[in-house]
């Protein structure tokens, strides 16, 4: 049977497309489905073909009349989620949490980031100014979640994580330098997802680095050496101190 024949699958784009379509549609069943899933594991190009079909078919869902669900649906979802997941409020004087800046919008948040940078620069008075670069990494709402300092004299990369950053237990934060051409380079994962001191990789502060970014990855880091697989949570760029 043709489905058992792996070389035939590799060499026939038409067969690959047909099986990927039936897999996405759900009509590939039983042993054939299981064999197809084994091939998927080792064949990224085949995964892309499947993803293409999933995307085409998912648009079917949009052809239905949008209908707002009754309010009880959201209430039921909230009841099902762990109430402990709501982060506690932090005292106003813990400025590094940046919570204090939130009600006043972007301006205050910018000020908060500047405050962080200033506070950090004052805590490290023994360093030559030209040896330090600093980056505040913000979330989509411009809240600062991490501050990264590169110290070329000591050869260290200091990463401070705001306490309000709660990482799911089976995940890890990974730091990336993104070049101007958009190529990510891994700078390492944050042990315990807390503030840490990493060895400074020269590629982190190369002039072609446009951005630093943090992604959320499986425990041992992104399974793809060429870039993040999980969501990119925080971004920011270097500033010279």
């Amino acid at each position, binding site marked *: 049977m043709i489905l058992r024949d792996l070389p035939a699958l590799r060499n026939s784009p038409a067969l690959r*497309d*047909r099986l990927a*379509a*039936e897999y996405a*549609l*759900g*009509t590939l*069943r039983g042993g054939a489905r299981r064999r197809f899933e084994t091939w998927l594991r080792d064949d990224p190009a085949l*995964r892309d073909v499947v*993803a293409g*079909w*999933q*995307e*085409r*078919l*998912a*648009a*079917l*869902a*949009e*052809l*239905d*009349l*949008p*209908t*707002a*669900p*009754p309010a*009880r*649906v*959201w209430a*039921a*979802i909230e009841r*099902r*989620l762990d109430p402990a*997941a*709501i*982060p506690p409020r932090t005292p106003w004087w813990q400025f590094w949490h940046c919570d204090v800046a939130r009600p006043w919008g972007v301006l205050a948040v910018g000020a908060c980031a500047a405050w962080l940078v200033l506070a950090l620069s004052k805590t490290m008075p023994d360093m030559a100014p030209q040896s330090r670069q600093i980056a505040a990494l913000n*979330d*989509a709402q411009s809240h600062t979640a991490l501050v990264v300092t590169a110290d070329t004299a000591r050869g260290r990369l200091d990463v401070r994580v705001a306490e309000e*950053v*709660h*990482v*799911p237990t*089976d*995940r890890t934060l990974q730091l990336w330098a993104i070049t101007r051409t958009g190529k990510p380079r891994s700078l390492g994962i944050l042990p315990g997802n807390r503030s840490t001191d990493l060895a400074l990789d020269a590629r982190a502060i190369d002039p072609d680095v446009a951005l630093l970014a943090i992604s*959320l990855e*499986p425990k041992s880091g992104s399974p793809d050496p060429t*870039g*993040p*697989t*999980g*969501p*990119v*949570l925080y971004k920011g760029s270097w500033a010279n101190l």
Partner: protein
Amino acid sequence: MIPHNDQDDQLYRLLAAVAMQDRQAFRTLYDATSAQLFGFALRVLHREELAEEAVRDAFVSIWHAAPGYQMHLAPPLTWMVTIVRNKAQHIRRRAHAGDGSLDVEAADGLADPSSGPSDPAQLSHDARALARCMETLASGQRQAIGMAYLHGLSHDEVAERLDLPVGTVKTWIRRGLVRLRDCLAQREAA
């Protein structure tokens, strides 16, 4: 990892925040997508209380699965639709096997595309293209693909419902999918 339109970009940012257990972002994500997903669940299940259950279960899963979401495998809405579809099909099988109260024969397959949102401007570019291309399929092809995708039916089950030989159904589905792909590629190129 690069989102390819504004809606994807917005949903991607929300999912990233949800991955970090941001309840407010989760609510925004729900507000942005729940009407579309509930409309879809209604089509699969035909009964409001079952569709509510599907959307509720799906969002609980989305909350827990967001940290593992991978942009390069599926755009955000595709990923969410797939979760709702799995939940809805599970509920459908259960309802069908249990009290038999779910009328699986009613409105099987894909409805007339013109029964969708009255204003095509409400549809994304992708969905508009898909609606146009679905219209080019023979009605049997459209119905068989819809029954398989929406209701999770196998070739055999579709054949049984339509009272046709399995071989015919397989051919309809295969030809329908090829035609759909070619039509979408043509529109993309145009």
